[in-house]
């Protein structure tokens, strides 16, 4: 099962390598990875999407906690959360498909950020399900290239 884990770390050189190395050394899979500083510039947030059964995930959490520069580890899958990623999708958009492409963009609140007589590039943000849906709809037209960010997530506040 897929888990999205946020890891708060000291913003020091080598920390990301240590976290990534931990996964590869033990044979755990990193499906997606995103890292950026927090408002406190001495602290960064790493968001990892990984998969495994309950025992594997428990081990991953414990191993992450052992890393000296790790401040906090949260498994966001365990609680209510919002997750997002952004995709830039370059599609072949010849005359016949141009209208359809624009309609799809509208439906998914995507922006057309580049346009040539043969192509459109769409920028779309959303949860994993939405991104996949857009891609599926655009496939028949012909996708030239897709570039995706890693997934990020944030816990929902309880009332």
């Amino acid at each position, binding site marked *: 099962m897929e888990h999205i884990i946020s890891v708060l770390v000291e913003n020091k050189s*080598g920390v990301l*390598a240590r976290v990534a190395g931990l996964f590869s*050394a033990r044979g755990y899979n990193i499906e997606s990875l995103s890292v950026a500083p927090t408002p406190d510039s001495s602290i960064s947030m790493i968001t990892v999407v990984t998969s495994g059964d309950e025992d594997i995930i*428990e*081990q991953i959490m414990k191993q992450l*906690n052992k890393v*000296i520069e790790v401040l906090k580890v949260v498994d966001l899958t365990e609680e209510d959360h919002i997750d997002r990623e952004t995709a830039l999708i370059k599609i072949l958009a010849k005359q016949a498909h141009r209208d359809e492409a624009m309609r799809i963009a509208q439906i998914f609140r995507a922006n057309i950020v580049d346009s040539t007589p043969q192509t459109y590039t769409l920028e779309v943000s959303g949860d994993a399900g939405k991104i996949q849906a857009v891609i599926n709809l655009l496939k028949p037209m012909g996708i030239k290239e897709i570039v995706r960010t890693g997934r990020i997530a944030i816990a929902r506040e309880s009332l």
Partner: protein
Amino acid sequence: MELSGAKILIESLKQEGVEYVFGVNGGAAMPIFDALYDHPDVKLIMMRHEQGASHAADGYARATGEVGVTLATSGPGATNLVTGIATAFMDSIPMVAITGQVYTHLMGNDAFQECDVIGVTRPVCKHSYLIKSGDEVADVIAEAFHIASTGRPGPVVVDFAKDAQIHESLFRYPEKVNIRSYKPKVEGHPRQIAKAVELIHNAERPILYAGGGVTLANASEELRELAIKTGIPITVTLMGLGAFPETHPLAMEMPGMHGSCCANYAFTDSDLVVAIGARFDDRVTGDLTKFAPNAKKIHIDIDASCIGKNVPVDVPIVGDAKRVLAEMNKLVHRVDIEPWMRQINEWKEQYPFEYNQKGDNIMPQYVIEQIYDLYSDAIVVGDVGQHQMWAAQYFKFTEPRQWLNSGGLGTMGFSLPAAIGAQLGCPDKTVVNINGDGSYIMTIQELVPAITMKLPLKIFIINNMYLGMVRQWQELFHQKRYAGVDYHDNPDFAQLADAFGATGIRVERIEDVRPALEKAKGIDDGPVVIDFIVDEEENVFPMVPAGAGLGDVIRGLA
């Protein structure tokens, strides 16, 4: 006062109470060695290979409980330390490994003797630092020692750029170390402890299972109190031997692949396993699907990631073994387990460690028995292989930090340099090195510093002219295809010792074994090497082969 980074390093080591730095010199570390040259308090121990230097620092740490310090230059010097660092990492030994590094402006440039030490050692150390400026040194060293020696101990690598070694700055040693992201949990949860005590009092077939963590926590007194107060039989692993006296009636001896039948049967039939500072390693558990199938498990460990990793645990207690056991001892009382103790004693009597005498050959187990008889108080440093298993089986350890060996990584060549470190750390003790012909030749060059320093090491080689443990597996599981194990071309180790400048004795007959050991006792002006030519194809039994459960232990004797 303004000091160079290298001088600040040595002054910082002095603040940490370091007596010895085990190292080998080289270009990128020269300023550090210069700072050590005439230092009144911190002494350089010059080893002959950086692997030897790292094992010596490790042996010092295991024998004394202090942080061992090793020092090498950049590039190949640093990479030669990796085996020693990984050895310490696997056994959780507190160590600080300092490596010289090229000038900062040359880093990443494929410079002469440059190596990304931080990258190379990342998976095999607890933490690492790169010092690029002289004013970082004091804080880094203070943190490094703190991390190495607290929580679950481990090696910390400090990579020190040469310009930082030269750069001068004000020396101020921090009074306290505060790492906001590193706060190891030492107190066990009182509710968990109470739950554990309840399980102990209600068990009918309980066993205590103690490992290297008890020694690392200096908790052997508390462990003894627990066992004796409750009257529960106890098995101590290879890494923990001596934490509980092997000669005590409650002792079941070592469990696992080459452990005692009693301990293995006890695991299999128990209804409660109390694990303290042990990690349910595969060498101990055998096939996990058959391991202690009817037992509830209590697991006391300072490392939360060890709990529930291999074996589901009913009562996990994260904390320092010494503190947790102290709390437990306040609550426990004697348990009534008469029938279980009768069974344990029956197993002990029926299945002791034993061997057959083969003709006139010197049996390796006989040598160990004689060593035990004559050197029962010594610190014993074992290497890796069959001789290590026989030493663990036939030498009855009674004190913690009496038995030193590389258990986790199983590094051949560990013991001779480690014995040097142990002797320097414990100058009033006799240090015996039980070595094998395969292991001995891997770090034999460290005889040189042992001789120079006149260390009265007793180096006993169990020489069967084979890479013994591998040969055993080839005999039992690979139709005796002795590929890559034939060591009949070994040199005469006694003559070789003489050439080095030590005392060498070759023993080929049974009647010469004991006299040689007695002679070695009297030699105190330097190391003595005894080459015992033993039976070539003797196997280590009992044995739990890979894939088998502990209950299927092969007792081995015809």
